[in-house]
């Protein structure tokens, strides 16, 4: 005999959950959804939007540390920007940034890609894949300050492990001065590549794992060579994934400051400074808040433009494949 079900009266519903507690309908007060969306928005506003506006405001004023606390600062137009753009220090740092981007970030993505695809193609046992992945990812788990100290130690010119190894292998005749002008930025790049290659590796590896196997079987029947398969099938299909890995490393590069600070402090003679490091130096160390704010806004603008271009490109690629 079936019991009549009365709409809105849960006690007449059949007990589908069979002993388990019946779920109560989700009825919440009106303010709950507003608070749920509002709180994160408020937090984002407090830690992202407000500081950006604040920074832009001070980049137009002659604020220094005392002025900041006494409220004694005046509008000076774009004078801070003028100071930044006309300084050799800033222009040099842009060159350093370019060098860091094109060798550091790009190398990390290329290396990560090569390692990920090699790992996938060569190692077939899941257990070994996991073990190797964990080993490769280890450097990424270290805090950058530790990585900086570690590499300063490894690269110590007189008796550092790297120089010693290169000497023993007969690859160099005398010590490399890793922290001299012109070399120190390369040392930072080496440490950073060691620290962060695992991120693009992980992203690209997981991308490769999720590619459909049937496509590769079709390629085998077609008779495409191993290299051709990688070049004509794997890489094009991983295009978006690689682009995302690159964007991640790229945006990180713009806020990159920790290894510079720990390894060289921008030296010697400011030859390994990046724009972010100068902003930090001018603002936090030398209390020129207005000028540091101008630095920050310039970096913000450059990275915003580049990331926008990147996203546009991504959108075009996705649309061409009918994904968006």
């Amino acid at each position: 005999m079936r019991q009549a079900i009365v709409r809105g009266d849960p006690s007449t519903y059949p007990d589908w959950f069979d002993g388990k507690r019946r779920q109560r309908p989700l009825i919440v007060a009106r303010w709950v959804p507003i608070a749920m969306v509002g709180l994160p928005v408020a937090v984002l506003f407090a830690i992202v939007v407000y500081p950006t506006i604040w920074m832009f405001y001070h980049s137009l004023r002659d604020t220094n540390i005392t002025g900041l606390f006494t409220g004694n600062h005046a509008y000076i137009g774009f004078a801070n920007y003028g100071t930044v753009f006309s300084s050799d220090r800033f222009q040099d740092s842009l060159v350093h940034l370019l060098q860091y981007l094109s060798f550091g970030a790009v190398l990390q993505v290329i290396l990560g890609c090569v390692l990920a695809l090699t790992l996938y193609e060569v190692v077939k046992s899941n257990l070994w894949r996991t073990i190797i992945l964990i080993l490769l990812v280890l450097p990424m788990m270290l805090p950058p300050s530790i990585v900086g100290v570690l590499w300063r130690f490894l690269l110590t010119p007189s008796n550092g492990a790297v120089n010693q190894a290169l000497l023993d292998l007969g690859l160099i005749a005398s010590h490399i001065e890793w922290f001299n002008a012109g070399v120190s930025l390369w040392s930072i790049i080496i440490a950073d590549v060691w620290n962060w290659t695992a991120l693009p590796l992980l992203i690209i590896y997981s991308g490769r794992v999720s590619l459909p196997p049937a496509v590769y079987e079709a390629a085998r029947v077609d008779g495409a060579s191993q290299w051709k398969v990688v070049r004509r099938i794997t890489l094009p299909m991983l295009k978006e994934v690689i682009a995302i890995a690159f964007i991640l490393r790229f945006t990180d590069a713009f806020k990159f400051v920790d290894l510079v600070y720990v390894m060289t402090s921008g030296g010697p003679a400011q030859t390994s400074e990046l724009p972010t490091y100068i902003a930090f130096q001018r603002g936090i160390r030398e209390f020129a808040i207005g000028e540091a704010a101008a630095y920050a806004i310039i970096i913000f603008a450059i990275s915003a433009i580049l990331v926008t271009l990147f996203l546009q490109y991504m959108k075009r690629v996705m649309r061409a494949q009918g994904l968006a």
Partner: protein
Amino acid sequence: MARLAIEGLCKGWDFPVIDDLSLDVEEGEFLVIVGPSGIGKTTLLRLVAGLETPDRGRILVGDRDVTRVPPYRRDVAMTFESYALYPHMTVAANIASPLKARRLPEDEIRRRVGEVTRLLRIDMLLERKPGEISGGQKQRTALGRTLVADPQVFLLDEPISHLDARIRHELRSQFHTLEDLRRVATVYVTHDYAEALSLGDRIAVMGNGGRLVQVGNPRELFEQPATLFVAEHLGQPTINAIEAELVDVDDRLEAHAGSLRLPIAPAHRAALTKVQQRQVTIGLRPQHLRPSDELPQGVALEGRIDIFEALGSTGVMIVDAGGVRLTALTSPERTFDHGADVTLAWNPEALYFFSPVDGRNILL
């Protein structure tokens, strides 16, 4: 041009999937392998294509033993159930890929891709990517990629199973008419018996344990199924299988199932007496069991209608007759009420007798 020969093929992982399977496909023959899902049909194709290595046995294309030869040197082409198109390439580039891999000159590639796409009527899609075309068009692109390779052996893995019914029927006809497919040895895998009966020069029914249960032309398989498995697999609705006991009544032989009493035709009686088997599974195709007024010369049988489905081109009724559930067909224009009593008629000559132990057809 060449034939395909499979000799004593074995393949298994934790359990045997293909077990001592032998099969010849002649040049120009269209062989359909049919069987339920998960029975090893695709594995068989993958072995022939070279995507898997057999544990034992040989595969020959023409006189050449290709068992240990890599896929692309076997001169076979395969379409995949998922089509396996390259998503980042255009339709033209997808179809051209086997030719590109062989390093043919550019204008030769363009000419052959043009020919194949015109033949398959996808020549207006050349610059589209797989994400932008329909399922039927994807299937044609995948087929184009195998056709353009001009192989000795075609392997088609459920090429049209995932398309909707109308397009499926439309594309089925393409397999009848494609000269390139009909010239060489083709192995076509499907779980759809209608495709098998429609397309196959011969049909191989694959059963549990990775063996071929029966190989023969469609008519032969339909009319003389070697086992109950074959009979159940070919034909829609599924054949009635009735567990029955053979009983001598006076000078006649009857099959008793529940309270059903089925007289056995004299022709069958002699054969059944010879095999001396009393427990049998009787097979009766639904098309041989009809309302008595549609089959006046048949033997009558009383029952009650459980379910009646009017399907447009035919009516299907499921009838409870003396505790046995039977499926019967009616002519399309008639309707019946659920729960109504009905008198059915059947033709004793149309019965099959299978062993209840191993499902073998006793009269073959």
